[in-house]
C-alpha cells in the first residue's frame, strides 16, 4: 500500500498545477461516489487526490448572461434545492435527482457524473439536450466545450492531463421552453439506466416548435446528441405524427450493447418510447411558460 497525497487547493490555478505536475496517477476528488469505490476495489491507485470542493467557481450556482452557471462540484442535492435553477431547467434537475439514493445525491456531482464517463450517466443526456457548455481549465488556460464532446467512451474523456471541468453554462431560456429527462429502469428508484432520454424544446408564439435538442443515454458508448430526432420536432406542433418520427429517429441512432440490463433490440425500442414521452413532458412544460 503506497502513500497517497491529499490536497485541497482553493483556486483552479493551484488545482491545475497540482494535477499537471503530478509524477504518478493523479485524480480529481469531487463527490467521490465513483472514485472511492474504484480505489476500494483496487481499480485505481492514485498517488495524488486533488479535492476541488474548496474552489468557489466549482461549488456555486450563479445567474450569468441570462442563464445559469453552476460548478462541476455542485452536488445533485444542491441543484434540486435551488428553486430558480430547478424552475428554469426541470429536466436537468430531474436527471440529477435520479442519481442514486439521498445519501449519494448529497455527494455526487454533475461534473463527476460527466467525467466518470459512464454511458448510462443520468445527468449527461439532460445537460446535452439543454445545450450546456463546459468551461474547462488546464495548463494552457481556459477553454469551452459542448458537453457532448467530453465523454468519448466508457471511462474515457477528451480532457488532457491537468484539465478540470470547472463549471457548466446553461444558456438563457427563451419564452415557451421546456425540458425533460426520462430514464427506464426495471424498478422505481436506485438503479442504472437501461435507456435515458433528454428532450429540450422551444415553441414560437403560434405553438410551433422552433428549436429542439434530443439526447440519449445508455444506448451507445457515450451519451448521444441526435440531430435527426430534433429535426423531427422542429417546424411541427409536436403532434402525434411528429412524436412518431422522433421515436423512429431516436431508435435509428441507437447502437447499444446487449447486457444483463437489456438486449440491443429492447433498448432500441424503449429509447424511442422514452424520447416520445420526454418530448411530451417538455412540450407540456413549454406551454406552461408563456
Amino acid at each position, binding site marked *: 500500500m503506497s502513500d497517497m497525497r491529499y490536497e485541497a487547493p482553493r483556486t483552479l490555478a493551484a488545482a491545475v498545477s497540482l494535477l499537471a505536475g503530478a509524477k504518478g496517477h493523479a485524480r480529481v476528488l469531487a463527490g467521490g461516489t465513483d472514485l472511492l469505490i474504484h480505489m476500494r476495489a483496487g481499480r485505481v491507485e492514485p498517488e495524488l487526490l486533488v479535492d476541488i470542493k474548496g474552489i468557489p467557481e466549482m461549488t456555486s450556482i450563479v445567474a450569468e448572461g441570462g442563464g445559469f452557471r453552476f460548478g462541476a462540484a455542485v452536488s445533485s442535492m444542491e441543484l434540486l434545492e435551488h428553486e430558480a435553477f430547478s424552475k428554469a431547467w426541470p429536466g436537468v434537475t430531474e436527471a440529477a435527482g435520479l442519481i442514486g439514493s439521498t445519501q449519494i445525491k448529497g455527494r455526487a456531482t454533475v461534473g463527476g457524473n460527466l467525467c466518470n464517463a459512464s454511458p448510462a450517466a443520468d445527468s449527461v443526456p439532460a445537460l446535452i439536450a439543454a445545450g450546456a457548455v463546459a468551461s474547462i481549465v488546464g495548463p494552457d488556460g481556459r477553454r469551452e466545450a459542448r458537453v457532448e464532446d467530453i465523454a468519448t467512451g466508457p471511462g474515457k474523456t477528451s480532457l488532457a492531463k491537468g484539465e478540470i471541468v470547472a463549471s457548466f453554462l446553461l444558456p438563457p431560456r427563451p419564452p415557451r421552453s421546456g425540458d425533460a429527462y426520462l430514464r427506464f429502469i426495471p424498478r422505481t428508484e*436506485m438503479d442504472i439506466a437501461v435507456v435515458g432520454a433528454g428532450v429540450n424544446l422551444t415553441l414560437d408564439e403560434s405553438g410551433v416548435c422552433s428549436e429542439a435538442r434530443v439526447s440519449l443515454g445508455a444506448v451507445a458508448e457515450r451519451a448521444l446528441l441526435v440531430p435527426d430526432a430534433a429535426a423531427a420536432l422542429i417546424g411541427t406542433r409536436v403532434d402525434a405524427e411528429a412524436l412518431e418520427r422522433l421515436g423512429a429517429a431516436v431508435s435509428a441512432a441507437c447502437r447499444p450493447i446487449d447486457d444483463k440490463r437489456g438486449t440491443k433490440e429492447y433498448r432500441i425500442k424503449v429509447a424511442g418510447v422514452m424520447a416520445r414521452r420526454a418530448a411530451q413532458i417538455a412540450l407540456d412544460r413549454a406551454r406552461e411558460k408563456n
Partner: protein
Amino acid sequence: MGKAHVTTTLNGNAVEFLCETRQTLLEILRDELHLTGTKEGCGTGDCGACSVTVDGRLMCSCLFLGVEAQGKSIQTIEGMAEGDKLHPLQRKFLEHAALQCGICTPGVLIAARSLLERNPDPTEEEVRYWLAGNLCRCTGYNKIVEAVLDAATEMRG
C-alpha cells in the same frame, strides 16, 4: 509520508484525529475514535448503514474520506439521544418494533432525522423515497415507515 492532522466537530464536540488519505470517515469513526454505532454494510454507498450527516447533509461515511472532515460538523448516531433521553425517532422505532437485527438501524435513524428536519410532515411515499438508500433485510420496511410517520406526528406536536 505522515498522517494528516484533522480537526472536526463531532456531535457538537471538537475532535482531532490523525489519518491516512485512504482512510474513510467510517474507518476513522469506528477504528480510531471507537464510535461503533455507525455500521459498515457494503462499503460502496449502496446500503446506507454508515449514514452520517456532514454539515447537515446526509451521506454515506464509507464514501467520505477522513481528511475531508477538516473543519466540518459531523453528526452520528451517538449524538442522537440526549443522555438517557431517546430521540422521538428512537423511541418510536422501539414502540413499533421497527428493527430486528439492528445493523441498518443507526443509518435509518440518521437518515430519517435528516428527512424530518427538512420536511416535518412527509407522506408515506416521501419517507420511502428518502429512505430508499437504507437497505433493511429484516423488517420489510413497513414498520420502519410507520415508526417514522408516527415520530413525525409526535414531533409536530
